[in-house]
């Protein structure tokens, strides 16, 4: 969808089963060994709890992760109110993180030699053919412990770039012809704020850019091979998958649009 030039935004959330101050609770109060029905089914032998029951008032004993405690959607909001947050989501000023991997991200694209704030996440930067586009990325590293009581460390940032080709006639297409990781930065020696820049000299086609970063604890070549994604997220090992030891952040794209007609000549 991004390669079609469509605003397909990233968000992160987790499902919530038990919420602080709910009027319902699970029938065995999170005791994984207690049977929750007459057949003797327990969480441990059945894989889940029975249907919730009335809690005789609000329950305050337990809760799932509170919003944002593991995965979090960060929205660039221009004001402190709900409407501004929703506007930010609609505009795509969004990045997501696991386990508070980083504290802040400010990524902008601009035309070299032109002043101004540049185009932020989710935005479209209109350029002329043969303009040089500069991408500037400012990452504020985590400076305090996350919910798992450690300060995560950002060890690598990857820049992902793909051509915008316009509507795809193959509605079942799952891949794009040119999207890949074009640059990886080692940020393991950094502290405070990381500033990264990348230049697209003399652009001659529309494209989009986005970034992702990781603690680099678990990486493997991506599904489409090392030429596309040399160090993507590695698949979990069954029985050994600590989510706090495999942290990533992902940004929304910035679109760079040239006057070239779409669909772009795919043969090129």
């Amino acid at each position, binding site marked *: 969808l991004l390669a079609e030039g469509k605003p397909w935004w990233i968000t992160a959330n987790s*499902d919530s089963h038990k919420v602080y101050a709910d009027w319902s609770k699970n029938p065995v109060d999170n005791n994984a060994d207690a049977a929750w029905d007459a057949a003797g089914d327990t969480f441990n032998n059945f*894989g889940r*709890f029975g249907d919730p029951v009335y809690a005789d008032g609000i329950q305050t004993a337990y809760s799932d992760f509170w919003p944002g405690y593991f995965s979090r959607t960060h929205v660039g909001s221009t004001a402190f109110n709900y409407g501004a947050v929703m506007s930010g989501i609609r505009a795509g000023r969004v990045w997501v993180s696991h386990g508070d991997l980083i504290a802040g991200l400010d990524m902008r694209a601009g035309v070299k030699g032109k002043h101004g704030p540049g185009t932020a996440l989710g935005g479209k930067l209109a350029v002329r053919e043969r303009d040089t586009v500069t991408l500037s990325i400012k990452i504020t590293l985590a400076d305090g412990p996350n919910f798992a009581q450690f300060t995560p460390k950002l060890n690598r940032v990857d820049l992902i770039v793909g051509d915008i080709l316009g509507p795809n006639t193959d509605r079942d297409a799952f891949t794009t012809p040119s999207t890949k990781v074009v640059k990886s930065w080692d940020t393991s020696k950094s502290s405070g704020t990381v500033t990264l820049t990348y230049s697209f000299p003399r652009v001659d086609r529309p494209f989009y850019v986005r970034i992702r970063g990781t603690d680099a604890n678990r990486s493997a070549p991506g599904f489409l091979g090392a030429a596309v994604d040399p160090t993507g997220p590695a698949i979990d*090992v069954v*029985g050994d998958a600590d989510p706090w030891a495999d942290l990533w952040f992902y940004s929304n794209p910035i679109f760079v649009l040239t006057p070239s007609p779409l669909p772009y000549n795919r043969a090129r």
Partner: protein
Amino acid sequence: MTLSTGSVLAIDTPLTTLAEAEHSLLGLGEAVDLPADVLVCTHEVRDGTPHYAFSVTSARWATDEATDGLLTQVGDYFGDWPAVFEDGSQQSQRPLLIRPAAPSSGSGSGSGSRSVPFGAGQALDETRRDETRRDETRRRDAGRAVRFGGCLRLTGSLPIAEVLAASAIDRIALLGGGTVAPDWQLSTRGFVRPRWQRGELVLAVLAVLAVLPAGPATGPATVAPFEVPNPTPCCAAH
């Protein structure tokens, strides 16, 4: 496994979940004397009313008599499912026999009896459903094998080399990349369901942390089938 030239029994079902489909197949081996090389697959039929179909294949069904006898037995086993036809009539859904010489084009449906999906009001093209089953089984590209040659030996934990030698599985695909060595262990969980992919019977596996009595394994790595026997339903109350 070489491609079978045997006849294919195609059975349509009203079942919409894999657990129900598995359950209904459980007694087939006891009710019917299936050949040792029998291949029983589940197929997802993706039409107006997505549901499951089964195929039963054996290279040993050389004669029509043998096949017809088995057709009757399988029909008796699955005979309770009603098919509703467009004129409102109902009759038991019988398995459809597709002989090796069956033409690949689907133009043969001159019967004019179009069935309506089980319990739904949407018209469904019987011919298209037959083609789904026939093509998947013939091309060996999408069926999911429940019974296959040597499947009864795949219990407990055993080396990859033995899995490949003892069963019809052609290849072990390690999800996430990499290759599986012959001396690695497959922890079967008593539930092995390989799928046809481009003519090969492929079992997708994941690496697992092998916790042995002595602690984490230090020898060959252990893998387990990607498909687990008892998946927790999505958003179950956990």
